[in-house]
């Protein structure tokens, strides 16, 4: 089976909009952020301020590393603010970025998801690798 790669597709055409992404406010505890990730079946949680601006992200990998490093009881870790365990300056993409370039960026940084923000850093959605690659390969329509 041959596939035709469309390099003109933009991130905005493929990204998951915020209602389909785990998005939590800055005062949410770690346990609540994890629940959101499980509910929406994504390995990323985006933490935003009251205006919806991206403050940080939390990923499955961050949690794995935290569990190996932290010596706190799990019950104490659960009530920490999710924000304090987040990556504060994550790699981001914009809706007008090329999907091809964004997937290349994912590969380069070995990440599965990228938050999509506007020029004011307001969160617009998440670019998820499964969907991105499927659309890029023409397996799935945007």
């Amino acid at each position: 089976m041959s596939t035709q790669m469309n390099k003109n597709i933009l991130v905005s055409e493929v990204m998951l909009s915020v209602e389909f992404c785990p998005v939590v406010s800055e005062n949410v505890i770690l346990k609540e952020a994890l629940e959101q990730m499980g509910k929406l079946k994504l390995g990323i949680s985006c933490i935003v301020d009251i205006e919806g601006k991206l403050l940080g992200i939390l990923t499955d990998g961050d949690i794995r590393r935290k569990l190996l490093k932290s010596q706190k009881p799990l019950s104490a870790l659960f009530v920490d603010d999710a924000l304090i365990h987040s990556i504060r300056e994550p790699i981001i993409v914009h809706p007008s970025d090329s999907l091809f370039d964004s997937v290349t960026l994912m590969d380069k940084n070995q990440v599965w998801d990228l938050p999509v923000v506007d020029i004011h850093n307001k969160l617009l959605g998440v670019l998820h690798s499964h969907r991105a690659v499927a659309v890029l390969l023409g397996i799935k329509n945007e």
Partner: protein
Amino acid sequence: MKMKKKIIEVGYGSVNKVKIGSNMPLAFIGGPCAIESREHAFKMADLIGNVCNKLNIPWIYKSCYDKDCRSSPESFHGMGMEDGLRILSDIRDEFSLPVVSDFSDSSWSKATGEVCDMVQIPAYLCRQTSILRAAAETNRPIHLKKGQFMSPWNMKNSIRKLEDFGSEQVLLADRGTFMGYNQLVNDMTCFPIMSQTGYPVCFDATHSIQLPTSMGNISGGQREFIPYLVRAASACGINALFMEVHDNPVAALSDANTVLDIQYLENILSQAKIVHEMRLELIEQFGEDNVHPNE
């Protein structure tokens, strides 16, 4: 990421204002456990005030009008809300002193908040949503005691409730944690853990040495440990010290086995103040505590 440290101010109207928080002088909260009579309440306010004035320690008078958590129905329950609050109000006026009292029933909160400069939530009720809501609705600073059954980090849930109900003036206290039955232990790490909420923390020394209901139908206590625990907590890092004080503990109508005899108050408070000030100097000299790189 460090939480912004909050400073609370206790005292409305013309009474002395007591600020409690980071880098502030150690505040004292004290008085007889229960309001026993008008004469006794005034006498204790005068005696404690003399010590605090001599040592230049900001303080808040504490006494309760209804002791709803007594072990026995035969024990002194308190003089009642109306009479008790009238006495506290008169003490405020007479001594220009902020006062604090607890309430165990939501319906008591409004009247308590109208008189008291600070309202207190008993440790056994520290996670009751209706009590927390009632406390927040008084719009007074709240003295929230960690339940003996609670972990210090789980107090954040009660804090979140209070914040949801509009309160951002909270003092978190440790009064010991159950270790098996009828016994308490003080875990000093609870102070830095509860401080991570951003709110000031308090050590309740006289309840920490309590042996809950250890004497069948009343609680015992080992008050000989008060000085040790006060020095330890002050060195660890607290913003306020709480102790129940009585001029004749043997005859005290409530918590007779734990209240501090007034004759030792100056000694204990002097030490607490010195250790507290030394801790602030150490922070000044060596910086905030941190042994984790990159944090």
